[in-house]
């Protein structure tokens, strides 16, 4: 669709932008690090971009070279099952790390693709672990991010209704957008309903039916990819047991 977010053109200023001046640093790896440690971290960070819509960062089996921190745009990570079916593992927003699943056995276990024009920072994995030995806060930061991913997969495997799942998904997006300084009630979905359904382990039609029901019940209003959360309280109640991370 032509309505995808227009990428902000990368300029030299942005390329030189460091972790300490990055607006996402409070969400990303530098969170909780002392200024001096952030300085050491940003020495290894290599900004890269732009990544075009549909372009892969890595595919299953690629050796683990770098971890990626999303700087702009959305990514989807997914596996391909033996029968060729895709299984969506997650959606990654700015400030989130991609590639953590490859830490063992140092090979990527999934594919990561840009859902719209995006940009990332590359974090060479070897150097990162070396630095981690010297900066304990960094290890903690990585564990925190890993733990979040685990919580999400546990929630997905749980016994939740379609309503719970969709509400939980919306609330998760909402809180992540809020943490990034965006509106928590006006969401623009970069992912297709097929991807949402696949991610939530629901049929595509079911996702649409739940969205329609939410709309009828005054929980949301939907105009193409724009979703307005009208009743956050009720959505939270529905979705809290399935809070897919934050």
């Amino acid at each position, binding site marked *: *669709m*032509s*309505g995808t977010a227009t990428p902000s053109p990368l300029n030299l200023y942005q390329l030189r932008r460091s972790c300490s001046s990055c607006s996402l640093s409070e969400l990303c790896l530098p969170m909780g690090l002392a200024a001096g440690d952030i300085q050491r971290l940003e020495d290894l960070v290599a900004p890269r971009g732009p990544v075009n819509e549909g372009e892969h960062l890595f595919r299953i089996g690629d050796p683990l070279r770098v971890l990626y921190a999303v700087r702009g745009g959305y990514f989807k990570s997914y596996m391909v099952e033996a029968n060729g079916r895709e299984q969506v593992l997650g959606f990654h927003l700015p400030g989130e790390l991609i590639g953590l699943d490859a830490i063992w056995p140092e090979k990527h276990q999934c594919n990561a693709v840009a859902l719209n024009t995006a940009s990332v920072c590359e974090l060479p994995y070897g150097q990162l672990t070396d630095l981690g030995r010297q900066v304990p806060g960094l290890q903690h930061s990585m564990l925190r991010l890993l733990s979040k991913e685990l919580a999400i997969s546990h929630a997905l495997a749980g016994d939740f209704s379609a309503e719970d799942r969709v509400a939980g998904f919306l609330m998760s997006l909402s809180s992540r957008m809020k943490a990034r300084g965006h509106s928590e009630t006006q969401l623009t*979905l970069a992912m*297709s*309903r*097929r991807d*949402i359904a696949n991610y939530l382990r629901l049929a*595509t*039609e079911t*996702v*649409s039916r739940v*969205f*329609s029901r939410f*709309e009828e019940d005054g929980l949301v209003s*939907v*105009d*193409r*990819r724009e*979703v307005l959360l009208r009743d956050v309280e009720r959505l939270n109640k529905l979705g809290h047991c399935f809070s897919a991370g934050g």
Partner: protein
Amino acid sequence: MVVGVRFEAAVVRRYDVPGPRYTSYPTAPQFSEAVGEGDYLKAARASNDDPIPRPLSIYVHVPFCAAPCFYCGCTRIITRDRTAGTRYLNRLQREIELQARLFDRDRSVDQLHFGGGTPTFLSDAELADLMRFIDHSFSLRDDALREYSIEVDPRTVDDARLAAIAGLGFNRISLGVQDFDPDVQKAVNRIQPQEDVLAVMSGARRHGFRSVSVDLIYGLPRQTEAGFARTLEQVIAARPDRVAAYSYAHLPQTFKAQTQIKTEDLCPPEVKLALLGITVEKLTAAGYVYIGMDHFALPDDELSIALADGSLQRNFQGYSTRAGLDLIGLGMSAIGQVGPLYIQNHRLLDDWAAALDVGRLPIWRGLWLTREDRIRRAVIRELMCRGELDLHKLGERFGLDFSSHFAAELESLAPLAEDGLVEIEPGRIRVTPLGRLLVRAIAMRFDAHLNQEPGAGARRFSRIV
């Protein structure tokens, strides 16, 4: 609620200039041949990906007519060869197949419209085949929410045919009447006795069509005030749900059939204006609600209800009640709209057929709406369908300051306000009843494409009245 239209001939005459009908904004002449199949695939795919994909509206163009009506400006083919219809249907099936592949099956077809040409040029068996094939390829609905309409030439149907058409699922019918005056009918080569037309109308009711719509044309050759008044009275007595009274656009250079109309038979401008006046007066006096431009409807008709509750829309068939559908155009010259993309099929039968014969969508041209287009489309829609524009609301919706964004346009409305077409209040533009008659003139002030090319309108568009 009956909205009267006070008729002021002098003002109407002043605004009787060529202008688009704004069945779309931007209008079709802005479409570009650089936009093609790849764009359409992209738009269709994206439209399936929405959390709640929009329901579908399908337009099917059947271009054939057995004889030319001299006034006609539609894309059509005159033939008595019935096999032309059969060949067309074979290719149409191919087009349906190609199109159906692009849209998810859980998207119901809420609207379906067969237009022409003459859809009833096709036999009952052919129409049934076509409907079966559409049903097989898309998800037609059989509940009351469906709006399935067909344009019917009253000369081509009898009671049995009406029953057959109703049996296919059509629940709306629109009849080309134009004028009952035999003298006019002769001058435009469309002889259809009034009794026959009225019989089709009552037949349509009997066979359960929920909505019966009648098309009239004013400004036809040899038309007189007395004759058209009689036609209006007879139509009103039959109580169709909707009446569309179109202005005849004499553009013989563009529409070849019109060269058959004798210049001396043409309606003088003052008579044409008087005919419009009679139309508005008689229909509103008889209880019809004036919807806008050339459309009238009974107060309990969905169009009147949509006008009252603000949900009225413009689409390629004129006014419509449903917003938020993706429109698929099938058949030569058909226009579709999927998400932010307008797309039009080849206008010539050979081009359309050639594309399908090599398995390609028969796309001629199209247009991606820009953000600015979307803003202006919303403005024009508010003016044409709601008769009112809340400047603050619109500004908020698009994140702009209306008064500065549209400073020049607001200034250009001042003379229209003086002439009583609009009332400009702080934060609001209101279209007066007179303005609704001339609403194209108001909309034109917001048409960025038209204003880029002064004088282009005269070549491309019919006159407003």
